[in-house]
């Protein structure tokens, strides 16, 4: 029976991480209409910034995480402002620009840090035992931070003027612009917010898993899968889909094995998309 509860804990933990990544991904699509192929790159970059801050500058880990968020958010802001903004309505161009940015980030990390995983471990160690069930403390910390970050994003999007402005732009850019919203100011902010979320996830998760220049490869696939399942551009959809993906991955891998687990995940997503082609919470037509 303890496998069932272990899988539940793993599912929640994976779901929270995926939600954080998917929220950033879907924010960019929902507000700008851009599919950000560099999302995995910001995740890996966040991990390396935190690692450099801890091992190079001797900063405590929480400050290193903050540094990772600020650096990735700043890079995202600047890239949107000076590069993406010029081609924001050209889907092919933005796809190539974000893909190019991903290649630049991963190659840059490879050149600076080398291909091998650096020694970067989470500062909280040990685990709690409940009978045969073991829960790693580091997973609980990550879960708590992810929960707070998701809550903060919801508060920002649904309870602040900035969030209302961003949602207005996502809903109908023309009408929002005539009402005084300024895309040139808000788009870089939204992009920076999303890349900061990816950086936060990288800084939190890579010390638990592994840090390498290619750490962002699987992240892009999972984020893409999650937001498509939730409905591109839907914040609630991304959160719920992330939890679904996390649970399917955990239960299928525990009960069917690693190979079958991946297969079940994709089959389930396929079935859901056949029933609801726009995803769980997606809309037929984007207003932006």
């Amino acid at each position: 029976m303890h496998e069932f509860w272990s899988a539940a804990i793993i599912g929640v933990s994976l779901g929270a991480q995926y939600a954080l990544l998917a929220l950033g991904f879907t924010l960019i699509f929902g507000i700008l209409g851009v599919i950000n192929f560099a999302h995995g790159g910001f995740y890996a970059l966040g991990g390396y910034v935190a690692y450099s801050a801890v091992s190079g500058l001797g900063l405590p880990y929480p400050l290193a995480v903050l540094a990772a968020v600020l650096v990735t958010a700043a890079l995202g802001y600047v890239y949107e402002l000076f590069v993406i903004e010029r081609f924001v309505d050209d889907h092919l161009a933005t796809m190539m620009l974000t893909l190019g940015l991903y290649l630049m980030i991963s190659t840059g990390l490879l050149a600076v840090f080398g291909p091998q995983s650096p020694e970067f471990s989470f500062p909280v160690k040990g685990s709690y035992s409940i009978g045969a069930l073991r829960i790693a403390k580091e997973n609980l910390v990550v879960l708590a931070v992810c929960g707070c970050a998701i809550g903060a994003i919801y508060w920002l999007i649904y309870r602040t003027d900035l969030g209302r402005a961003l949602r207005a732009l996502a809903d109908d850019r023309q009408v929002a612009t005539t009402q005084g919203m300024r895309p040139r100011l808000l788009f870089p902010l939204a992009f920076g917010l999303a890349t900061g979320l990816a950086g936060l996830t990288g800084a939190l998760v890579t010390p638990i898993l592994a840090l390498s220049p290619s750490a962002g490869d699987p992240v892009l696939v999972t984020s893409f899968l999650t937001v498509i399942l939730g409905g591109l551009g839907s914040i609630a959809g991304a959160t719920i889909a992330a939890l679904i993906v996390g649970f399917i991955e955990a239960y299928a891998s525990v009960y069917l094995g690693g190979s079958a687990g991946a297969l079940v995940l994709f089959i389930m997503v396929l079935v859901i998309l056949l029933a609801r082609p726009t995803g769980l919470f997606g809309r037929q037509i984007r207003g932006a």
Partner: protein
Amino acid sequence: MPRRTTRGQAAAAASARRPLFAATIALAMALGGQAGAQQACEVKLGALGPMSGPAAQWGLAMLGAAELAAAEANARNFTVAGRRCTVSVVSYDTRYTAEGAAAGINNLASQGVRFVIGPVGSPEVTGAKPVATRHNLLMFANSYAKNAIGPQWPLVFHLGPGPSEWAAPIVLMAQQQFGMRSVVVVAPNDQGGTDIASVDAEVYRSLGITATEEYYQRGTTNFAPIVTRILSSRPDAVDTASSPPGDSGLIVRQLRQAGFTGPIGHLGGPGTEEIIRVAGGIDVLKNFYWYEVVPTEDPQVRAIADEYKRLLGRDAPENTNMWLWVVGARMTLRAMETAGTTTDTRKVAEALRAMPVDDPNVGRGSWAGQRFFGINQELSLPFGAGLIVDGQNRGVRRIEVGQ
């Protein structure tokens, strides 16, 4: 006033100049030809393997070996058919994939490479072999695939045998030390995992240990679900087989976090230093046994690292796989000297087959492979079995082939 000459005088003068002119042309052609020959005699040694991702350690070890062999050859005036040649290394990152290796072979061939050191893993070797055969390239590959070499690929040589040849004495050593009666062998679900894990499992079973196999999708970063599944069968030991060092370190870390206290093995490509680093230290590893491709504590073998630093001015790659790759790279270059060609890969292959296996650092061995692969193109050399007990490294024991 212009000097006037009769037709006869002009013909005589031309006749006198003709030998001089011919000699000049001949000298120019000879010098030009020599210069051309010197220019042409540049041997490009291909280094094909994973240089990024979890298996990067193995690829970088292979690249380091090719660079060392090239530097040694250049330092000793590498001469083929009376011509002094320079050796350079051209590398390509396969990212441990079949398609990456196939693309890499095409890329290397387009750059004039005729001899390839690598690739490292089974998926890569499977992807590279048909393309290399089409280009007539000689490949000195490593892989524990069941079809790594064969009579249909006469230009493919094999660096070292698979687990059917070396796993038994290591499992025996671990069994004596830890007394395990059941094991879960975990590896990626592609040829680089299944071809090794299935053989490892057979070896465990042949020694009376219950073995089950567990596979994961290559690219997995969170092993928590797999670890939960492994632990549900309550094994005495877990063997990470041919999982790359990065993956193995992560599996070890998550196994220990989940409360597993039994011994952990790694009967696949070496990478203990990386596994220790990713797992979080030797205390986390605690009880561990592993395969080393060469006896890594032999001072003569370790001298390769000193030679690397002396010739290349930097530390040798960490992964001990390099020390075996050096043997393959050195032999390939020596075979070119013996065959007297830097382009005819068939002649070089013939010379390689006839060459005794006797490396100045790693020692004497033999050509093997006839029984398993149907072709005698596999290097067989002494190997090592490493052991960590209660967080203490007990070192690497030398094991002779067939022991």
